């Protein structure tokens, strides 16, 4: 039976078309797994020359690996068809057999392979003598088993929740929190001059982690080498207790998930939204107001749309403050303006095949343009608000009031031009968005990777190009005559607005002409 599970996993891997390249994609994925895992493993093996550092690094690494694996189902649940135990609920398989089968299947794949190679490298790195190598290998494999057991235990515990809308929303929030934490830490570390701070902090953390189960696996070989048998025994007991606890937790969660059906219709969210109940689509502006109200309601309720806006806020404030230096750093808010504008991208794909509701409701140019202006208005209101906060914070912190007119001009030009480019490309280069919403990072569907990449690149390029006049005037304001800052404040956004106006109308006409073909493309996202 265990062999059957292994065969199933191999079959699933063979049938996966995630990269849209068929068998070529699988070869690339395999090479990437071997390359990345092997590379990390090689780097870790080279730590063998500094045994004390190696032990602390491995304690950090092992604990991070177990934590990352455990959290992974929250971030990207459903990427592995063998993960969700409910898929096996109707098969006549006993729980212990199922658990062993799931363990074996979870150890097969590109990610486990990359992890295994990295861990085997770490085993060499932490082996102070070659006679210790068998023990360090066992410990490294123990880390991988611990990763899988705790990851699957959490996945089984939350399988009902993660299959629901609320569970996926929770996953989105966890994803964003992790991304924000990573972004803040990496930005701070990359820009900090006190490098010793990082190393000493990592060392302190490593010493604490040495008493956790994965950390203990890193230190057992060192204890054995030092003849500290009591300490080694204590750490081994911690490890064995963790395995026993994790296995029992997984078994309990598995049994529960196989015999319980969660309800997806209870405790629904309140319907209070931002839709103005008095607006009727009888003119361009009223259509735009109606659609903008719907868009903002969706942004409020849908984490898939809310998380990118939080990222805009994060990047808009952190990036100019941490990366850019001096009183001119406010100009870095241009990036936030561009990012905010990109939130209007792929508007026809955001609801997947839900586009049909608009297609059957109207077929006239006025409403088609009104719809796009509504999407633009929602983006400009929300993105503009975030941009205003970003500019204000950066200006106050950097005392850049003198540069404010130029900064506002450039940032608004970026916002308008990126919004226009995003809406234009929505109609001319549409592509599907995954509607399963298993991950905030999932942004393309198999077979449309090229369109998505082209659309993304085109969006940023078009946005930047349309923002150039404002940027040139701002540069003149900083280098030639300060009066140009005020010119940039007026002319930059005005030119970008005119460009946005033109391309929105062109895009709306394109939508009217090609709506069935756009629906055909974006509906693919329903099944991903």
């Amino acid at each position, binding site marked *: 039976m265990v062999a059957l599970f292994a065969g199933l996993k191999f079959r699933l891997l063979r049938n996966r078309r995630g990269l849209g390249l068929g068998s070529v994609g699988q070869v690339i994925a395999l090479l990437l797994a071997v390359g990345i895992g092997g590379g990390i493993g090689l780097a870790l093996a080279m730590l063998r020359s500094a045994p004390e550092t190696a032990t602390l690094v491995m304690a950090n690494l092992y604990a991070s690996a177990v934590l990352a694996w455990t959290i992974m189902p929250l971030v990207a649940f459903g990427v592995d068809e063998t993960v969700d135990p409910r898929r096996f609920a109707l098969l006549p398989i006993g729980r212990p057999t199922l658990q062993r089968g799931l363990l074996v299947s979870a150890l097969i794949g590109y990610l486990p392979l990359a992890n295994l190679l990295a861990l085997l490298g770490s085993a060499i790195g932490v082996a102070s003598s070659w006679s210790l190598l068998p023990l360090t290998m066992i410990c490294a494999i123990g880390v991988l088993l611990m990763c899988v057991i705790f990851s699957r235990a959490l996945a089984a515990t939350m399988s009902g929740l993660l299959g629901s*809308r609320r569970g996926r929303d929770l996953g989105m929030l966890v994803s964003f929190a992790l991304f924000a934490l990573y972004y803040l830490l990496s930005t701070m570390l990359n820009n900090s001059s006190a490098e010793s701070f990082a190393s000493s902090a990592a060392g302190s953390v490593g010493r604490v982690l040495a008493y956790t189960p994965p950390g203990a696996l890193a230190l057992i070989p060192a204890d054995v080498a030092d003849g500290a048998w009591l300490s080694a025994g204590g750490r081994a007991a911690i490890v064995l207790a963790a395995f026993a606890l994790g296995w029992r937790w997984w078994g309990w969660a598995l049994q529960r998930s196989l015999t319980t059906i969660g309800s*997806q*219709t209870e405790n*629904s*969210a*309140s*319907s209070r*939204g931002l*839709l103005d*109940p*008095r*607006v*009727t*689509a*009888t003119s361009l502006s009223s*259509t735009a107001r*109606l*659609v903008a109200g*719907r868009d903002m*309601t*969706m942004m409020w*309720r*849908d984490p898939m749309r809310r998380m990118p806006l939080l990222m805009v806020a994060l990047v808009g404030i952190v990036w100019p403050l941490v990366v850019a230096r001096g009183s001119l750093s406010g100009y870095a808010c241009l990036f936030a303006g561009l990012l905010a504008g990109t939130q209007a991208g792929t508007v026809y794909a955001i*609801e*997947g*095949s*839900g586009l*049909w*509701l*608009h*297609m*059957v*409701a*109207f*077929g*006239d140019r006025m*409403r088609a343009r009104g719809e796009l202006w509504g999407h633009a208005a929602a983006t400009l209101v929300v993105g503009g608000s975030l941009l205003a906060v970003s500019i204000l914070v950066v200006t106050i912190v950097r005392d850049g009031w003198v540069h404010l007119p130029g900064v506002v001009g450039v940032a608004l030009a970026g916002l308008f031009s990126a919004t226009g480019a995003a809406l234009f490309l929505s109609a001319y280069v549409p592509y599907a968005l995954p*509607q399963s919403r298993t991950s905030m990072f999932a942004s393309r569907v198999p077979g449309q990777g090229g369109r998505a990449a082209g659309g993304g690149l085109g969006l940023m390029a078009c946005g930047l190009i349309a923002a150039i006049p404002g940027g040139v005037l701002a540069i003149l304001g900083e280098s030639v005559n300060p009066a140009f800052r005020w010119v940039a404040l007026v002319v930059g956004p005005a030119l970008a607005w005119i460009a946005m106006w033109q391309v929105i109308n062109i895009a709306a006409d394109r939508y009217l002409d090609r709506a*069935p*073909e756009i*629906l*055909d493309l974006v*509906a693919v996202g*329903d099944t991903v």
Partner: protein
Amino acid sequence: MSTQGESTANPPALAVRRLARAFGQKVVVKGIDLDVPVGSFYGLVGPNGAGKTTTLSMITGLLRPSDGGVWIHGIDVWGDPVRAKAAMGVLPDGLRLFERLSGTELLSYLGRLRGLPVETVNTRSRELLDVLDLSGAGDKLVADYSTGMRKKITLAAALLHSPPLLLLDEPLEAVDPVSARVIRDVLQAYVAGGRTVVLSSHVMALVEELCTHVAVLNDGQIVADGPVAQIRGEAASLDDAFFHIVGGRAMSEGGLEWLRSSQD
């Protein structure tokens, strides 16, 4: 059957001429001609893969035909989409809704997007939610609706602007019996008022019970159409007639002998 669905003095509710669709080399719908009389309850039946959903998608303007035309009450669907869309209500199969709106919000939004007055939208939405037994779920997000509730809220959206023609793709598929009864009652009342319903279904008993007319679609072609009694002919039921029309193969013709045995 008229040759120009759009030009007659009293056009049919739906006229389809030489409607065809190919996906690459594969021709899924092969030049369909069809007239649906005003006031009829018209069933479109056929085995899986016969082309029912593709045909309905082209009729409703959601899929561009490779060839041919569609007229709704004499209005060209692809030539005059503004008037045509006002004249039809659509319930497609398997397409998403605006999941993060509540049922009430969805109806309100779509009604106002069509340009209906706010008071009209509010009154009709309330009545539709009430009749379709969705009043208690009006404030729930559509994402949390069951299959039956989704069918009912989509039907409500299709009825909201009171169109003369309803086009429904598998309206009772995967719907519980209570919801199915509610939907059937609403549709029968709608036709009794002189309007027209076209629905596709796999369930022959349902078509026989509800429909006045039926068209049998097989391999992208209409192989029989007319009043239900005429299509049924001498057969014991529409199900039997359908079975013979599409050339079904009985189980007695071979295979699965092991199912008739009590041994493993």
